[in-house]
């Protein structure tokens, strides 16, 4: 098995786990959203790596029938997923702004303390 040749998958796994760790361990809501973004970006890389073919060029129709080209479908799919990711981040940030307005803080432990004191 070629360990080094699959280095982009190792990058994917590293990014995925570090993003996930940030989401779980951080109490700051903006940092959590950053972690979430890293987490989902790693999946984008996973899809893009799948579509790549060694020696393949961009999928453009040419006269040469033997032209090797990368699979464009995962790339297109990930365009959609990027849009979804942007929308999620937007909704998340909007919520954080509203939380800051209503609570005066975006640290989870402080918010919990304020909720419990009522």
């Amino acid at each position, binding site marked *: 098995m070629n360990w080094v040749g699959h280095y982009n998958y190792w990058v994917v796994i590293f990014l995925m786990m570090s993003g*996930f760790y940030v*989401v779980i361990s951080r109490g700051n*809501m903006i940092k*959590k*959203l950053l972690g*979430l973004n890293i*987490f*989902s970006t790693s*999946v984008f890389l*996973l*899809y893009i790596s*799948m579509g790549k073919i060694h020696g393949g060029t961009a999928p453009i129709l040419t006269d040469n029938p033997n032209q090797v080209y990368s699979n464009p*479908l*995962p790339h297109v*799919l990930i365009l*959609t*997923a990027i849009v*979804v990711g942007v*929308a*999620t981040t937007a*909704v*998340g940030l909007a*919520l*954080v702004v*509203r*939380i800051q307005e*209503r*609570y005066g803080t975006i640290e989870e432990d402080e*918010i919990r303390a304020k*909720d419990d004191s009522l």
Partner: protein
Amino acid sequence: MIHLPVALVVIPLLGAAVCVLFRRSFIAWTVALAAAWSGFAISILIAVYIMKIGTLSYSIGGWPPPWGIAYHIDYLNSFVLLIVSGIAAVVMPYARTSVNYEIEEDSQAYFYCLLLICLAGLLGITVTGDAFNMYVFLELSSLSSYALIGMGKRRRALTAAYQYLVMGTIGATFLLIGIGLLYNLTGTLNIHDLAHQLAVNNIIGSHNRTLLTAFAFIIVGLSLKLALFPLHLWLPNAYTYAPSVATIFLASTATKVAVYMLLRFCFTILSGGFIFKLTLGKILLIPALAAILIASMVAIFQYDIKRMLAYSSVAQIGYMILGISLATPLGLSAGILHLFNHALMKGLLFMVMGAVNYRIGAVYLNDFRGLGRTMPWTMAAFVVGGMSLMGIPLTAGFISKWYLVQAALEKGWWPVAALILIGSLLAVIYIWRVVETAYFNPAQEMEAESSGEAPLSLLLPMWLLVLANIYFGIDSSIPVELAGRAATLLLGGAS
């Protein structure tokens, strides 16, 4: 007839745009009502067609299935379509009064817009026959539901929505990884083509690592979305602090659609659900039983009744997953049937919460004192909904519990059947607390103007669901027939 499946998704999406264009609350409500009712009418037409012909396929833009996105409807989809669009059709007339009370005038149009987008997403998940398209629709419905929950009056609604956003996005991303691995394995995204490719290339039989990893990701991701027991943490807060209409709609549709996705992935793609017979059935059985017991017990100690019902939702999801995890025709149809019955009873109970909130302003246990006299029709509706939740004969809840117990006994699993009954007894306890407070405690000596029966616009949809709960408890032939056919279809590949 030809374009009906796509109309289901397009109508609410266009309606959402119209809502934002006009910004007037009344126009937005009218549009939402029209969209929801036409969606229900289309679902009925499709169901009638399906009962006659069997399946209905629609290729978007005329591209044939393995390449283009195809909508594919069979018994299971059409049943879920009926649930989702039916609940939407009942919720919309209710929404006007409740939304007027709970949401500020300028943001009401946006509320209806979000509700329609959520409906479009849920219907989209149900009709589509393409795995990636399912993910996109899932995110569409989830994103709008985060915003819907965040529109709740209390500030805790915001943190609840944020928590749901983080957990929901992790779940959806897991699903995306799983779908990506499946694509890597087969080179297709169409659900029926996926099933075909997996079977033809003998990937299923060979204990392929990628396939198992893909399904591990898909099942954990979907369990987050459907709030299976240890992954349910977002649900109680989200349902408690969301506006009443959003709670009614989400509680009776969103988790059901996630259960539908689980069925689609595990039974249609892996023909006959072999993965359940392998190990997954037992893996899912434990959280399902834990959900029934623990969530019901936690529900007993809640003082916010909306929160109590939210925990009871977690328990009821346990029943559905329990039925599915048995992976027998009887268990599967009991699980599918419980999707329908739970939508009826939880929709009804949360409607009662909305009405109580409309009159009293809160739904703590203390607020229910004396409501048996001041709001007789509302509390009678609560009693019927509660009986349905416990599974008392002549209500819809009884039918699915009955089938569940039979399915467990058929497998010879006596302890499981006993646990189902214990779960029902726990439901008796937490429902009885409310009934006792409402009927046997003296009313609060409070200002007379706020007490009184809920307005007719809230009572009519509520009582429609009461009648549905009773009707489907006496004559259950339609849902039982549909659920049975869906179960045989799902298990069909096994034989």
